[in-house]
């Protein structure tokens, strides 16, 4: 099967999956005993008529099937509806997507930049100091909750005044020249990127180390060494190429987390991203916004998996697309 046909087939397969995901999400949201207008209703200054009008505006007065149908109909015309706050969901998502993407891409870059060499190094120098050092570091990274690390770094920033406390820009951002603007955002990004990198590092570094260790025990590596190939060539040309496959699958998952993987960190660090938006939307049952975020996550997961499979094909010619 050629690659384009394979992609097309996968896309067609994904459609019913998306449909099922959307129905499940919608049903679960509707079943949740959350009143989307709670804060209005708890306000004695709001009259009954005002709340009725709000229900009508949001379409909450219609039966659930009708609401779902309306949602699907809007989706087909690329209209994601309005959020409970009255703004357009697409605009809300677009406003935040850039910020989250910036954070995720930087994190992704730093994580892989550190994790892969660190994994290789640890595998090659197994049992030595470096391996143990990374072992401890990744153990901490795996066991420490992100929000705790974020809070600790915030406290550090507060005590030292070296870094700003949360957010993405200083209040006077627009009075700065472009160079200082980049510097300002970079300063604000240090803590969130550090937190996410540190936590993400653990999994990938360990995976890399484990895979490479497996491969290094293989017969063909021994053969290569026996042939008298230099150690560098043995490791980087023969062993590494074979060890990298599971990581490509991981890469696919990482892709799906690009827009949704940092909700907690974003919330703790006051980062204006999608995760925070979605989290708040779930808590207030902002159905259109939650549905849009969930569908976006689902699409990215499907695309990420597809990408990983196709990439595997290119990296490893032994794999055939079926």
């Amino acid at each position, binding site marked *: 099967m050629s690659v384009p046909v394979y992609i097309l087939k996968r896309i067609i397969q994904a459609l019913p999956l998306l449909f099922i995901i959307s129905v499940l999400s919608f049903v679960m949201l509707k079943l949740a005993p*959350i009143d989307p207008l709670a804060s209005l209703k708890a306000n*004695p200054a709001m009259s009954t008529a005002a709340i009725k009008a709000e229900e009508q505006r949001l379409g909450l007065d219609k039966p659930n099937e009708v609401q779902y149908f309306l949602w699907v109909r809007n989706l087909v015309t690329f209209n994601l509806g309005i959020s409970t706050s009255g703004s357009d969901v697409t605009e809300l998502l677009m406003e935040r997507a850039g910020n989250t993407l910036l954070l995720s891409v930087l994190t992704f870059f730093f994580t892989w930049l550190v994790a892969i060499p660190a994994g290789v190094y640890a595998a090659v120098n197994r049992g030595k100091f470096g391996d143990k050092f990374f072992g401890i570091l990744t153990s901490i990274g795996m066991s420490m909750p992100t929000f705790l690390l974020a809070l600790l770094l915030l406290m550090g920033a507060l005590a030292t005044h070296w870094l700003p406390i949360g957010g993405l820009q200083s*209040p006077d951002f627009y009075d700065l020249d472009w160079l200082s603007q980049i510097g300002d955002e970079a300063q604000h990004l240090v803590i969130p990127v550090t937190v996410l990198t540190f936590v993400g590092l653990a999994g990938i570094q360990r995976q890399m180390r484990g895979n490479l260790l497996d491969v290094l025990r293989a017969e063909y590596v021994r053969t290569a060494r026996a042939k008298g190939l230099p150690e560098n060539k043995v490791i980087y040309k023969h062993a590494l190429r074979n060890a990298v496959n599971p990581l490509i699958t991981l890469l696919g998952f990482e892709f799906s987390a690009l827009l949704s993987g940092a909700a907690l960190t974003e919330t*703790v660090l006051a980062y204006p991203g999608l995760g*925070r938006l979605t989290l708040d939307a779930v808590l207030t049952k902002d159905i259109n916004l939650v549905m849009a975020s969930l569908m976006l996550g689902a699409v990215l997961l499907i695309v990420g998996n597809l990408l990983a499979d196709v990439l595997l094909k290119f990296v490893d010619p032994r794999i055939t697309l079926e």
Partner: protein
Amino acid sequence: MNKISTLFAALLIVASLASCSDDVSGIKQQAPPTANAEEGLMSTIYKSPQPPPAKLIIAAADSVDRIKPPQPGEEVAEFWQGRGEVGRYGGNLTVAIFGQGPKTFNYWASNDVESAGLCELMFDHLIDLDPWTGQYCGRLARTISISPDKKELTITLRKGLVWSDKRPITADDVIFTLNTIVKHGYGNSSYRDVMSLEGQFPEIVKVDDLTVKIMTKKPFAPILNALRICIAPKHIFEEVTKNPVSEFTKFWNINCDPKTIVCSGPFMLGRYVPGQRVELVRNPNYSFVDKAGQRLPYLEKFTETIVPDQNTEILKFYGNEIDFLDIRSVRGIDAAKMKSREESGKFKIYNLGPDDGTMFLMFNMCRRKKDGKYIVDPIKQKWFNSLEFRQACAHAMDRKRMISNVLRGVGLPLYTAESPSAIYIDKTLQWYPEDLKLAQELLSKGGFVKKGDDLYDADGHRVEFTLYTNAGNLTREGVSVMIIEELKKLGMKVNFQPIDFNIMIDKTENCTDWDSVVMGLTGDKIEPYSGANIWKSDGRLHMFDQRMPDKKGTVNVTDARPWEKEIDECFNGGATTFDTAQRHQYFDRYQAIAYQQQPFIFLYSMLNLTAMRNKVGNYMPTAWGIYNTPKGSLHNVEEIYIKGRK
């Protein structure tokens, strides 16, 4: 600093209640204990010294930065003169708000505090309250007068008022705002409902370019409060109101171009950065001047940073990234630590006294059936509808301990339906003593029997029920745990279940499937009639016995208790008279009934704490000069300035 310290409110209560000990069917009144030393931290309420009343300055209409005396025959403009000291221009005040930030820049469509408070910085009210006396006074208006039969209100605007696009503000704008936007329910129709008496909107007519007349069928006192509304620019909104009502909420939404917003307040919208901050800039055409005749506001910029929660907000304050923590930003658990940082952080904490909110415990007193089944289990129904049961619970509450342990002293015990800071509080109802013995006597009077440590009702059922509160609110959770402990002493078994706020409201408002709840509601210090939604038997927030509307949306009350009917009458009576003494009588009566019947067992009111950096001048907070945040306690925001920088 001209700081005048006053004694803790409880001390005043001692004086006023020294001889009060009458017994109202099982409720003992006694003098409360005096404030004790550990609570000293928050014991002094800050009072900004009261300046002389605002002066009206008449100047040439073409005055720019500094007012010019009018030449004969020239057009004049009327300015309000600021009441603080003369400050200096420039600078930026950065405040923070926690949550999602504003939802709209359209004041008339806003239905959340954050949006309304932000809009109050951009649009001026028609009439307003004097922050020191609590009396109604003009803002955009120069004068308000009431006809002798109290059915006609005449409001005269100041001369020479202009929008930020220099178009004049006239009676047409007022008429348009009230008769079109408000009357036809564009945006938030609550504005219409608070102005209506028995469903009838007042008749509003233009007298001349600067004067409007508002006529009601009967005298209707709460209309003054309702007229504390911001006026919309007719020349902008006229087009919008030609579209269907649903289009109105989209106008001036958060994605609009800031330049299209035309303001009458001290600031204009500069920029909105989603999820991060709102930047307001100075409105050079604002109609206030300082004592030197210079146009206000002083601040060049007002920045509102959006943060996800209170913790981040306070961290940012410590980190010098924001200048001001407004009311509801400083919690009890932060106050002591913050106090110790005052000097090093170069700021000061202000205690503005109790806020307008009330925190309470309530039981579901509903006796009705839904789909043939009782909404509340008939066994529990009996308990919750027993006056002795509710009074016993009220006597079991150790409010003082709640305040010192959970609120860390940042609160005042509450026994009445109105907050201690309200103008209409009934001062004779001050104390509901913590008395477990009395509580037990009341329970036996109500037929309850205590066997060993457990309480049983007259029919032999163990008293056991569920208590909800909203999860995540540490204060409420802490208070709930204390309540459970107290009720355990009476032999009740209370199962605690913290649930999400939106779920809790769903329970109390929609499916009425709950036993007891600890929650709070905001109140109104100025106009007790604002509580009608809660107290009237057909009210939308009559939570202790919520009656659901029928298919047509009307609530038919068939099972009101005699005292519920009497409260209804108090509210109707209090609304239809302007006479302060009479109004006090009506509203005192409703508070007395609430006090005796205990449908809500009131627990405490929080104290309003703010923290302002010392570099900010003219910060003169008062108990009554409080708006929606971010305007909050900055009632004189136009006069706020940043003191000399090095």
